[in-house]
């Protein structure tokens, strides 16, 4: 293992330690102890004293901070993120139910954006002075510049409410019965139908960056002298494109990685607007209920995923581009 790789991994470990500590402290700095979060505003908002004492005992919030930290570390080692203060269920269970939804939604949106952006970017770079290219650029950028919540609301109002083409919330139709192959197909279609609007919102926001990157990278490479020579030698257009793409790939992969790094909470707004049961939704719920354990779990998951993806990107850059093997 080279020194540089070691340096990257060391950095990752250090950042991880910082994240773990921050994770523990931050939710506890919130005003509003977990008990006051457990009772809502719209009810006669007090738990009988006996129930409160019981909760404090169960969650150890009556112990000193240092004891809580030690317990927290011990739990982490075992893979135990504690129990939710609101639902009493293990936090790992709650995260486990939500994470797949977020990964699926964001993962597919990022992939779609990359493909769409790259395709449009290639088209614009290939014939930069055609009417289409000159029109495409500002259009894509303009649409991408729209605020995410506006795009979401717009889609909901026009496609969901006015035209009733898509459902405006949730990930599935409640309690869809799946019993046979035909049922599976129906369920799959239902999933896609519910994911259509949120995924579209995300793609509209993400694709422009991929478009710009591909177009600019390709345009730069397409003007390079070596390609001029290749054309002169009679190399076909497709081969040229392929060569151009090899040069454009590294920054594209980097952008892809950057977008995936924030996958855990990157779609929080979209999830909230569409009531999609992912990690972003869980975040809002946990903040409202002052659910420390769940907040800790979300932060930890998000940070670890981010750090891990960044580490992978750095290591991948090694492989793809030897020039980055110097000291960082």
């Amino acid at each position: 293992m080279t020194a540089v790789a070691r340096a990257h991994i060391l950095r990752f470990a250090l950042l991880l330690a910082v994240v773990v500590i921050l994770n523990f402290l931050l939710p506890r700095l919130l005003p509003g102890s977990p008990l006051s979060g457990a009772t809502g505003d719209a009810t006669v908002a007090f738990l009988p004293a006996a129930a409160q004492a019981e909760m404090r005992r169960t969650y150890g919030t009556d112990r000193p901070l240092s004891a809580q930290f030690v317990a927290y570390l011990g739990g982490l080692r075992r893979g135990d993120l504690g129990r939710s203060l609101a639902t009493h269920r293990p936090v790992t269970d709650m995260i486990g139910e939500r994470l797949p939804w977020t990964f699926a939604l964001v993962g597919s949106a990022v992939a779609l954006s990359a493909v769409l952006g790259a395709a449009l970017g290639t088209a614009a770079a290939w014939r930069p002075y055609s009417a289409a290219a000159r029109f495409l650029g500002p259009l894509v950028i303009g649409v991408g510049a729209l605020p995410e919540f506006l795009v979401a609301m717009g889609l909901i109002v026009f496609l969901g409410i006015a035209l009733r083409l898509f459902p405006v919330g949730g990930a599935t139709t409640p309690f869809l019965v799946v019993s046979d192959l035909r049922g599976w197909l129906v369920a799959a279609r239902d999933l896609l139908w519910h994911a259509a609007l949120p995924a579209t919102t995300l793609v509209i926001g993400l694709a422009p960056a991929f478009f710009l990157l591909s177009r600019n990278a390709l345009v730069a490479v397409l003007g390079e002298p070596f390609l001029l020579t290749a054309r002169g030698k009679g190399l076909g257009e497709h081969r040229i494109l392929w060569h151009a793409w090899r040069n454009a790939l590294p920054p594209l992969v980097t952008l892809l990685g950057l977008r995936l790094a924030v996958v855990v909470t990157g779609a929080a707004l979209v999830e909230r607007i569409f009531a999609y049961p992912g990690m972003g939704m869980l975040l809002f719920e946990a903040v409202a209920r002052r659910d420390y354990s769940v907040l800790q779990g979300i932060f930890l998951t998000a940070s670890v995923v981010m750090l891990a993806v960044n580490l992978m990107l750095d290591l991948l850059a090694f492989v793809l581009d030897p020039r980055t093997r110097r000291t960082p």
Partner: protein
Amino acid sequence: MNLAATLLRPRRRFRPHGAVLMAALVLGGIIVAAVLAGAFAPYPPRSATGTPVEAPSPSHRLGTNDLGQDLLSVWLHGARASLIVGFVTALLSTAASGAVGLLSVTWRPGRVPLLATTDGLLAIPHLPMIVLIVALLGPGLLHLIAALAFLGWPAYARVVRAQAQATVQRDYVEAARALGASEARIARTCLVPEILPLLWTKFLLTVRWAILMEATLALMGLGDPTQMSWGLTLNSAFAYPLLFIGDAWLWWALPPAIAVAVITLALSTIGQDFENWLNPASQRARRNP
């Protein structure tokens, strides 16, 4: 392609084209409206001057909201909150970005801690952090600005640093050093001019980001309810259960939505043009058909 080499290419003079001029005009118009809101607005925005949820009429051009406040006045005053958050956040954030980027190159002992802080902050997920900070400090314009500035500066610090590093290696800086110029003077005369365009771009993009974040948070109910902002108007609009049954959404939700869209589009257009100017790859495209 080497980032440093890219940034150091000679550039053409900045000549904005049509769309950018229009965007600048629109932005200017909104700023004027915000500053003169007091004069233009037909009523004080907080006074309940009409019956709640009234359609537009001669006395209330955009109708009224659920408290009976004149929506036109609220809309004009809403520009203020958005612009204040946008510009102040951008100012703080850009200054911090620039300072950290520069210092990490010119101030030897500060390099490691500055870079570590930058990377550390970058590792924290944005939205949960803002949600948490707003829940921690309570909603309030100042808190929001602080949170946004705090989260916004690390992203560009690395870019500034890269530019400063590349500049420092150039011949004329070496020459200046050989002639005995101090580090501070080098920073002032050689580095700052090179990073200024970068900072200007960052400023514009941050204004846009901050305005967006404020609107988003207000829409989610995490905004400052004492500040009339477009996001807040949208929040109260969407909380009205009969918004889409009937046409209330046309005059209640649409105007602030359009306002946010327009201002972010305008800032985006101007900022994009800047970035294009900075990035010579697009310039080469224009030279090589």
